[in-house]
């Protein structure tokens, strides 16, 4: 493991702490799926993506679409840490008048490209971005982060079909496969496995990794860039609630914020005193 990877792991830890504090303050929002996505989002915002927080509309930027929009807190802490807006704003999450809406809203928040939250719609928008950028012969890349439960939406597969049809090798989808959704295990609610095979059958270049292994994430993102003529999906096995032992692998923490009593214990798990 090199210094870069260690630094990114430390950033991810900081972001998890910010997620817990933000959700404790708002007392509303999605804890489990925000924490499972943090390592993937960290790798994108603090390593892979070209972007300029001082100029959110910079033409040369790569695009990110948080298809699983309920993990908005994970995106917001990354945007705040990057410098798109002051970290204090996080404490206003989900409040009336706040620019931080319950689910990502491109009209409100600097750095948010398109609104998401209604599951299944994000990948189509990412496909449109990739198509438009290719049309202009631009080299910008498009990243989309989906949930595994979200793959139950039929529109995801319409989008998957079209991305391969139009040979969108500038598109990289990541699946935060934490195995849980609101009603329980994805496998039991409506099985989506085998995810990578499904995408391969749709014409995608598919990789499977441990979504909390920073080295593996960076390698996969690198390999995605080398794919020619087809989009890449990185199926990242993750743990819902990752980093806070008593949140981990619990569907019951899907949409529940940390309570007053849980906050200090959660922060302790994340090495925050």
């Amino acid at each position: 493991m090199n210094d870069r990877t260690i630094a990114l792991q430390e950033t991810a830890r900081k972001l998890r702490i910010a997620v817990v504090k933000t959700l404790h303050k708002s007392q509303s929002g999605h804890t489990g799926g925000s924490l499972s996505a943090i390592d993937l989002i960290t790798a994108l915002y603090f390593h892979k993506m070209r972007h300029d927080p001082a100029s959110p509309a910079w033409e040369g930027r790569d695009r990110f679409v948080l298809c699983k929009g309920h993990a908005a807190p994970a995106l917001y802490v990354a945007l705040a840490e990057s410098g798109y807006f002051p970290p204090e704003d996080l404490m206003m999450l989900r409040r009336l008048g706040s620019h931080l809406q319950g689910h990502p809203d491109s009209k409100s928040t600097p750095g948010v490209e398109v609104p998401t939250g209604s599951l299944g719609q994000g990948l189509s928008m990412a496909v449109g971005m990739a198509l438009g950028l290719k049309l202009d012969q631009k080299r910008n890349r498009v990243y989309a982060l989906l949930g595994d439960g979200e793959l139950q939406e039929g529109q995801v597969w319409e989008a998957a079909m079209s991305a391969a049809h139009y040979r969108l090798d500038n598109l990289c989808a990541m699946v935060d496969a934490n195995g849980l959704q609101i009603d329980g295990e994805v496998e039991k609610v409506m099985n989506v496995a085998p995810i990578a095979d499904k995408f391969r059958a749709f014409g995608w270049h598919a990789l499977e990794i441990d979504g909390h292994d920073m080295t593996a994430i960076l390698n996969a993102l690198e390999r995605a860039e080398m794919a020619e003529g087809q989009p890449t999906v990185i199926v990242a096995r993750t743990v819902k609630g990752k980093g806070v032992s008593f949140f981990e692998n619990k569907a019951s923490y899907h949409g529940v914020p940390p309570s007053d009593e849980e906050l200090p214990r959660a922060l302790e798990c994340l090495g925050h005193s």
Partner: protein
Amino acid sequence: MSSMIATRDAYGETLAELGAGNDAIVALDADLSGSTKTGVFAKKFPGRFFNMGIAEANMVGTAAGLASVGKIPFVSTFAIFAVGRAWEQVRQSVAYPKANVKIVATHGGVTVGEDGGSHQSVEDIAIMRAVPNMTVIVPADGVETRGAIRAAATFKGPVYIRLGRNKVPTIFPQDHPFEIGKGCELRPGSDVTFVTTGLMTAQALEAADFLEKEGISARVVHIATVKPLDRELVLKAARETGAIVTAEEHSIVGGLGGAVAELLAENHPVPMRRVGIRDRFGTSGKAEELLKYFGLTPEHLADTARELVQSR
């Protein structure tokens, strides 16, 4: 009424013309490009046309993504699919972020004909009108369609344009200026006003001719932009003629009739009647037969207006 042209044909030609002058214009279709006439654009600009297959939800989302990187996407399919199948994509991915997407739906209303009730959208205007940030336009003829398509291309934000399958008489002069949100008085009158949209405007003009022979002076106000409604023009008609008959090739629930009723009820209530499809689905038949079957004829419009005037 010199010529007849289907509004969808006027769309195809206009889109192709616009494409020549603006590289940002792209078109998407869901396997109906021959019918919606985006095929004309596709032939001229194959690199900027995307057939998305029979997958309307993804098509609308893809258009929103294209808009977010600076393109001006025109999305077409039949009205029933653009509004029905892809409603939530239109709401979440297009209207919510005010994406610069133009949804041009063809085969609106019952004049789709033989395909029957499954393919005849009688509620699309109501559905689109209820979505915030959405502009809703129903042109009356080919000339107005050209104007509406051109206006939509320069307008920033989502627009829904509803077109028809069949040829309709041209009622506007070729140089008719089109402005989003502006209705127009096509015929003066003092006893009653027809407030109409789409192909019903031509029917209302005929109805006004019948009524004139009976000594009833009927005004005809054409409303292409159902939302935002030209409030001043409709209120002026209500004040000056004291009776309103709306007409549309659409359900009487929530469309132009609904919009006018809402406006009048709050601002200047006058006796009114809504001519349209009376809360039911369409059915198979020839377009002309269906217009008669659903009472969307000059005769029925004249009867409705006469009765309203006499009951005052």
